[in-house]
């Protein structure tokens, strides 16, 4: 055990690492896109549109692809979802549009996600900007958080003629698209290119490195701007509920993913020989698969319930398995062991469902580990939005909003992961869009003659 802890960089030849982090879904070429597009039946009141949180007119954009108008298809997509390029990469289409596709009757839906990618790639490859700032209304809106929700809101507001200041705690815009999604889902700097396209509408100013609660306050923003949109996401990771004894090499999976996304040289990134990931969502899978792709020999993903209960989609689970990740169901960590202040192994308790409840069976096992990544969900920290003068109502630990994204404060809207609803990029984009429309209506009501 003299090598313990066995954590090192460059476990694989650089070329292998580069290949491993290549595109998860190779793009459709023109002929493949034509063949795929011709399967669409152009349904009436199409179920796929109903299933899309952003209501993209899918039959229309697929028909546009089939007639050779991929850029027109991209406009159809982006009009409904300005992050249509990223959503084409990360949406769990098998539980959204593609699940609703009527061709599922034959067992194979139209490849909506890949066609969406084809169309948006076609547009982005031209460098064309489709949108411009609307005629100035004179209104100023603050958006907090430059993730999918915040930027979607900012973009829509800009097209409606409002001036937008975006405050972002991190150094870069993009939110989880830039920091929290596996690298092989958004290759070749796509996340930043997309942010540039979104910001390219004009009228949006990014204030990076400005954190709410530290550099700006909600009350201050509400006083300075005509409206505020909060798209601050989730700030903390759920604890495992065990004593970690201050051991080194126990880390949040999101931090690992962020480090991985921001490095310029994957081969320089250290990873353990034996890695354990605890959790069952997309983040757990993204961390596990990427650890494997960096060269970890044994990556074990441990989830306390069965496969069906995993928040990660079936497809994501398959990605994990085909990349050599071992998934162990029905177990939870109850202790860690260290050696010289660093992690050495994790002790697990087997679980079971009894009378509908998850219970410990009493049976245990121990897995040696060089690294442990925690991915059992993220939480919203209300401290950042807390303000002595303004009380923002919460609901289920997140910001309470109505159907339009209005919070309990009159000039404040919110959306994305910091509000209730599915933690999906596509849902965040829709939240931002709807809040922008709501803000626009509110501003119009307040300033009916502003445009005259």
């Amino acid at each position, binding site marked *: 055990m003299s090598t313990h802890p066995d954590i090192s960089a460059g476990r694989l030849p650089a070329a292998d690492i580069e290949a491993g982090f290549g595109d998860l879904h190779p793009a459709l070429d023109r002929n493949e896109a034509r063949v795929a597009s011709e399967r669409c*039946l152009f349904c*009436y*009141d199409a*179920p796929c549109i109903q299933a899309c949180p952003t209501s993209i007119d899918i039959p229309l954009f697929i028909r546009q692809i089939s007639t050779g108008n991929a850029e027109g298809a991209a406009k159809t997509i982006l009009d409904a979802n300005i992050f249509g390029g990223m959503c084409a990469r990360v949406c769990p289409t098998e539980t959204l549009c593609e699940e609703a596709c*009527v061709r599922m*009757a034959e067992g194979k839906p139209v490849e909506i996600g890949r066609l969406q990618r084809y169309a948006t790639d076609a547009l982005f490859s031209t460098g064309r900007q489709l949108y411009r700032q609307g005629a100035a209304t004179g209104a100023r809106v603050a958006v907090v958080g430059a993730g999918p929700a915040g930027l979607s809101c900012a973009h829509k507001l800009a097209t409606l003629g409002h001036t937008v200041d975006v405050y972002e705690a991190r150094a870069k815009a993009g939110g989880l698209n830039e920091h929290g999604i596996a690298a092989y889902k958004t290759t070749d700097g796509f996340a930043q290119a997309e942010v540039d396209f979104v910001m390219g509408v004009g009228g949006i100013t990014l204030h990076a490195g400005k954190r709410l609660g530290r550099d700006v306050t909600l009350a201050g923003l509400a006083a300075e701007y005509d409206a505020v949109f909060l798209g601050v996401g989730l700030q903390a990771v759920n604890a495992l509920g065990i004593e970690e004894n201050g051991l080194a090499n126990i880390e949040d999976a999101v931090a690992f993913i962020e480090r991985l996304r921001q490095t310029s040289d994957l081969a320089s990134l250290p990873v353990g020989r034996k890695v354990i990931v605890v959790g069952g969502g997309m983040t757990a899978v993204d961390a596990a698969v990427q650890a494997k792709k960096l060269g970890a020999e044994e990556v074990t993903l441990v989830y306390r319930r069965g496969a069906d209960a995993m928040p990660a989609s079936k497809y994501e689970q398959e990605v994990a398995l085909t990349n050599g990740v071992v998934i162990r169901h029905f177990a939870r960590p109850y202790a860690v062991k260290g050696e010289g202040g660093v992690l050495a192994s994790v002790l697990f308790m087997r679980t079971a469902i009894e009378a509908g409840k998850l219970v410990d069976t009493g049976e245990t096992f121990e897995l040696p580990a060089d690294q442990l990544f925690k991915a059992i969900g993220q939480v919203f920290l209300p401290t950042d939005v807390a303000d002595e003068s303004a009380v923002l109502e919460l609901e289920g630990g997140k910001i309470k909003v109505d159907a339009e994204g209005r919070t309990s404060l009159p000039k404040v809207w919110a959306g994305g992961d910091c509000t209730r609803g599915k933690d999906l990029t596509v849902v965040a984009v829709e939240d931002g869009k709807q809040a922008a429309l709501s803000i626009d209506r509110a501003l119009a009501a307040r300033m009916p003659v502003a445009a005259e």
Partner: protein
Amino acid sequence: MADLSVDFVGIKAPNPFWLASAPPTDKAYNVERAFRAGWGGVVWKTLGEDPPVVNVSGPRYGAIHGPDRRVIGFNNIELITDRPLEVNLREIKEVKRKWRDRAMVVSLMVPCTEESWKAILARVEETEADGVELNFGCPHGMSERGMGSAVGQVPEYVEMVARWCKQHTRMPVIVKLTPNVGDIRKPAEAAKRGGADAVSLINTVNSIMHVDLDAMSPWPHTGGKGTHGGMCGPAVKPIALNMTAEIARSEVTRGMPISGIGGIETWKDAAEFMALGAGTVQVCTAAMVYGFKIVEEMKSGLSDWMDQKGYSRVSDFVGRAVPNVTDWQYLNLDYAVKASIDQDACIKCGRCHIACEDTSHQAITNMVDGVRKFEVIEEECVGCNLCAVVCPVENCITMVPLENEVDKRTGRMVDGSYRNWTQHPNNPMAKEPVAYDTDAALEPAE
């Protein structure tokens, strides 16, 4: 097993599947490949007078594609054979001698003078070919020189040339008709008057396949200029079927042997032409798209279907559908059907609903009790078949005849009675009006 052999105006062949006069039959090499693949006969690509014609060296073919780039329409601007007459005649003789059991018909196109026809017929006879087909059909190129469809469009010329040919050869004479006419019966009647043994149809339909929106010229084009070509392939089959039926049921031409041509790709296409009176069929596009092997499917499919139906030879069913082709005025206006949607087969695409809702009779729901569901509203359904046509699932929507029941749309009892337009009280020209309850017919039922 069914006997597929045919005797068409004295020309015998092991099966009715012949290759039409076209690029696949221009050379001994291709024709022998076709015979080895199992084709029953060929019509050798049209011979003309020397010196041979010259073809363009740019594209000769264009197409309309369906899903999966299936060629559903195909056109060409190729002329008749561009090889010397002597070469073709020698090869025809050689191939016929090697393949005695196969039909060898030679297509001909020469200027409209008796001498020209007399001369070429004598030379073709020497090849021991089984018959000749007079190409009065090609609508491009040759027609500008007074041949091809320029002849086929003038019944008097058709009759004249057919008569010359019958006078100057013992071989059976088949007249190939152009569809680029107003009434196909006229040239067919002319062919009969001229003594032709049979007609074959259709030749290609005049067409521009696409416009090249960059070059702003027809597509395909020859260095920026394009011309109309002759279209064939599955898209022309309905036109060809109608023309075949018109000739088969016309009083003047009834019983005249027909060789059916136009978009035949499968045994079923062939059987349809034959049911409308074609004694043989000719194929080109399908062979040019898929190769000669398709004849295997055609032969086995036709044979299996004949076995199922109890037809032992092709003459058992040739023309069987002809008596059921009639004029609109004789259709039974008392007959009624309603669309029926098989809910288990329905994939809920909604195309039946939107087609009916936007463009027809508002007779299909899209929502029932708040659930996406497509059901026929019999009170509105006129039985037009549009829903069944647009449905992507075969046999999911069927048209069910009403039998001894009230049509919920008209309130009329459908009891198997027969009344056509010539008998209908709404027809001022009705010959024998039948008593009619106008109120019941016009008022929708509650």
